[in-house]
């Protein structure tokens, strides 16, 4: 199975092998600013399953402990496509809204609901964290393993 996605202008395209991959929503302030919307949608994918076509630009953001998170975007239209953390090089985190068809994605968890915009209603069946799991890398790996 191949899932495809890309930027707004079409200059950058990507494809994912396997899946479907789980998606989580993060409602923290930083994700609201980065997405310029109410929350970010992140889809972790193993790097070996991820292929990109086209030229990317990169925004490198220093994180705690000398680590960094790199955001990759299309230089022609500015669309943010995926992130990669130096803490966990085994996967990339795809911005799920850039999938060609995001209509059927399944959101498996909500992070930082303490910052959630009040009008956003959550499914009580979906796990929600006030902030975020203590060990994000381990949590993400479990999330991927548990995906149907």
């Amino acid at each position, binding site marked *: 199975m191949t899932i495809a996605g*890309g*930027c*707004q*202008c079409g200059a950058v395209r990507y494809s994912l092998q396997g899946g479907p991959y789980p998606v989580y*929503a993060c409602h923290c*302030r*930083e994700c*609201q*600013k*980065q*997405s*310029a*919307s*109410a*929350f*970010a*949608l992140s889809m972790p994918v193993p790097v070996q399953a991820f292929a990109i076509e086209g030229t990317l630009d990169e*925004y490198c*953001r220093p994180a705690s402990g000398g680590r960094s998170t790199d*955001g990759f*975007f299309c230089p*022609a*239209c*500015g*669309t*943010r*496509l995926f992130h990669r953390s130096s803490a966990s090089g085994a996967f990339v985190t795809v*911005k*799920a*809204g*850039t999938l060609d068809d*995001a*209509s*059927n*994605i*399944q*959101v498996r968890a909500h992070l930082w609901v303490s*910052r*959630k*915009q*009040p*009008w*956003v*209603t959550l*499914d009580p069946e979906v796990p929600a964290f006030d902030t975020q799991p203590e060990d994000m890398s381990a949590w993400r790996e479990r999330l991927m393993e548990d995906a149907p």
Partner: protein
Amino acid sequence: MTIAGGCRCGAVRYTLAIDALPPTYACHCHQCQRWSGSAFSQQAIVPEAAIAVTGPVAVYEKVTEDRTSTQRVCGTCHARIYNVNTRRPGLAVVRAGTLDRSEELECVAHIFTASKQRWLALPEGVPQWPQAPPAEALAALLGAKRPR
């Protein structure tokens, strides 16, 4: 009093010369999903003259048949700040997730819900349109909530 906001990394800051947080609406079209990387774009409409921006702004233009949309984003982290559109001279569409008090925002309408991601439940009683709304109807909703 002014309302303030900025990008993810803090390099771009802006103020809106308005008295209260503006009402917002969500657009669920495919283009807005891609650009936000999330489920929808969330926006507030303000007079362009009410925005004052500082910092390194990058500009992306999208030209379609009847309009040119000029997107202003942070030149460093590429968070989207606002856009103007030749069809709506004098008005700016602010990407509301970049407001400093985004956690307090209300969402008074949902548009292009025909392409809404299925996992997302919209609050009952909030006006929604499967495609574009009649311009007057959306303007009335956005105006009716101002000032709070």
